């Protein structure tokens, strides 16, 4: 016997018998907000939370002019995806609100990723370096204890239960003492704060020693490194004295795995012009190094990548060819029974198909800059994102939020102009984005658009960021809709 005393959301529903007896042909519907884009011969429709479907131009026109047949299959599909609701069934509005709130839940946590740039020195001389490293002996580019301590005060001001501190450079291990100091001090503070605290060192691994590994083991520190592919690609992309970077990184990956465990090390690749001709070899390298996936990452328009004109050597079309060739090979690998993931595609798929936020800072609106991730530079400068400090090393301090040694938490967040930039660049209000079908899968990227167009909003018709999101989304949705065998592989990545 069903309990008749219902409350909350259930109040908005009719009793079950109503739905059994309802005559569909009597339905009158109204539109819920949605956007659409022509893709080939049909239209991609997405609602406010990214539920999507493809339909014909004829059905789209009927939908908009409210002449759709309530008995048609397309009507049911549109209703189930909250593109329309029936008059008298306003619960759909509240359900959609709830879904939207869930999708934005990440912002309740505020800043969780805190990047400490402990040194700008580096032993490598990568032409595509996005952070404008300094020569190794220039120790004026190192973070000191006072700056680290002030940064930690700031870190624990975040309301987030989860705090990740990531040490970056340059090569952060060139300032190992300050990493050690910061980890120990953070743990001391956390005895009373009791947050979920995690540490990551982003390193080229050259300086990894037994002492460092022992410390990382004891304090549960994760390692992130760079592996660009086989020796002839890696060593060209990432030159160092001795030209043996590839051998070092491969040997050290094994050493780290042995001490810390296989799940404590990950690798990232950067796509140079040379990489574009070697998709299969690069993936083979990752398989050979026993990684379970790869993040196909194009160059970013910052630092030496701009200064040395590396960024101009290929456009998105060429990157997309590389991406497609790589994906083709990755599908073949999975079809042969070896699970292997392309991480950016997996992120996009999670954005499309999961009801929860992914936490991927680059694809958020409001932008994740400052509010999801924040950067403490070696000199005390506070930046809204890793890309912001990359821009600053090129002499442009547009996204510098203040200085940890002289400014308060409130001044940095409320008086730095950060909130104005986030508000100006909301995808819900900027030209093109607010009516874009890809909006739920994308984000506002003020630093990228400022770096490429000198405008945090940017002309979206000229935006490489937009092109990338749209093109890769179309590629993935095409597989999900039309290739059942490969859809199963992609579903495993979500």
């Amino acid at each position, binding site marked *: 016997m069903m309990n008749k005393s219902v409350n909350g959301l259930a109040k908005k529903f009719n009793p079950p018998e109503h739905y059994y007896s309802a005559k569909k042909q009597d339905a009158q519907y109204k539109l819920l*907000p949605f956007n659409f884009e022509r893709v080939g011969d049909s239209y991609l429709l997405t609602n406010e939370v990214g539920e999507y479907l493809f339909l014909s131009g004829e059905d789209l026109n009927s939908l908009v002019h409210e002449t759709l047949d309530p008995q048609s299959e397309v009507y049911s599909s549109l209703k189930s995806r909250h593109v329309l609701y029936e008059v008298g069934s306003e619960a759909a509005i509240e359900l959609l*609100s*709830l879904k939207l709130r869930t999708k934005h839940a990440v912002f309740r946590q505020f800043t969780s990723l805190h990047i400490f740039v402990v040194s700008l020195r580096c032993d490598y001389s990568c032409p595509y370096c996005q952070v404008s490293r300094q020569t190794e002996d220039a120790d004026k580019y190192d973070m000191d204890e006072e700056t680290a301590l002030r940064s930690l005060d700031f870190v624990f001001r975040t309301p987030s239960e989860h705090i990740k501190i990531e040490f970056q450079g340059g090569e952060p291990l060139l300032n190992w003492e300050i990493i050690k100091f910061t980890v120990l001090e953070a743990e001391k503070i956390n005895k009373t704060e009791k947050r979920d605290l995690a540490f990551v060192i982003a390193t080229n691994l050259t300086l990894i020693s037994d002492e460092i590994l022992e410390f990382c083991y004891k304090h549960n520190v994760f390692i992130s490194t760079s592996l660009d592919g086989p020796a002839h690609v890696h060593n060209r992309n990432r030159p160092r004295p001795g030209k043996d970077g590839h051998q070092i990184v491969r040997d050290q990956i094994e050493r780290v795995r042995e001490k810390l465990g296989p799940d404590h090390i990950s690798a990232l690749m950067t796509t140079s012009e040379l990489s574009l001709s070697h998709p299969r070899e690069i993936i083979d390298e990752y398989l050979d190094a026993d990684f379970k996936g790869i993040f196909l990452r194009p160059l970013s328009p910052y630092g030496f990548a701009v200064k040395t004109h590396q960024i101009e050597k290929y456009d998105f079309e060429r990157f997309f060819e590389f991406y497609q060739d790589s994906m083709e090979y990755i599908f073949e690998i999975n079809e042969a029974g070896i699970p292997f993931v392309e991480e950016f595609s997996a992120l996009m798929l999670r954005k499309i198909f999961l009801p929860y936020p992914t936490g991927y800072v680059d694809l958020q609106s409001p932008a994740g800059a400052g509010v999801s991730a924040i950067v403490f530079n070696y000199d005390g400068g506070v930046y809204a994102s890793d890309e912001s400090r990359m821009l600053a090393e090129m002499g442009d301090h547009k996204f510098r939020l203040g200085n940890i040694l002289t400014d308060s938490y409130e001044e940095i967040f409320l008086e730095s102009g950060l909130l104005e930039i986030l508000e100006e660049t909301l995808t819900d209000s900027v030209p093109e984005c607010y009516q874009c079908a890809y909006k739920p899968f994308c984000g506002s990227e003020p630093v990228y658009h400022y770096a490429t167009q000198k405008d945090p909003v940017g002309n979206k018709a000229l935006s490489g960021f937009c092109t990338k999101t749209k093109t890769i989304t179309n590629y993935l949705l095409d597989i999900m809709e039309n290739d059942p065998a490969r859809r199963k592989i992609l579903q495993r990545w979500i």
Partner: protein
Amino acid sequence: MQRIKASDVTGSSKELTVSIDLRVISLEALKKSCYRFSDSYYYSLSVTDTGETATVTFRILESFSEEDEQELLQRFNRDALDQELREVVFQKTETVRNLILMNAFANTDLIEE
């Protein structure tokens, strides 16, 4: 992707003009289509004194064939119709959209205890 080059606006280029009936496509929708095409073409947009017709003039390469011109016009007209439909959707859903946003970000639980 084709990008605007200096030669597109000076030297060896020609003009391609399309007239739009503003009773069919609103000026707002038309401006949005022009914005979308701004990655590849330099254009100018003007409205007649009576306000009934708008003219969009693209500056295209001298080498554009008649087929290229037809393809561009077809794409532009199709996009303008899509933009007009987007305007209709936006107008029809603006109130409910604001309601959803208000509900979603209200500083309270959505489900009553």
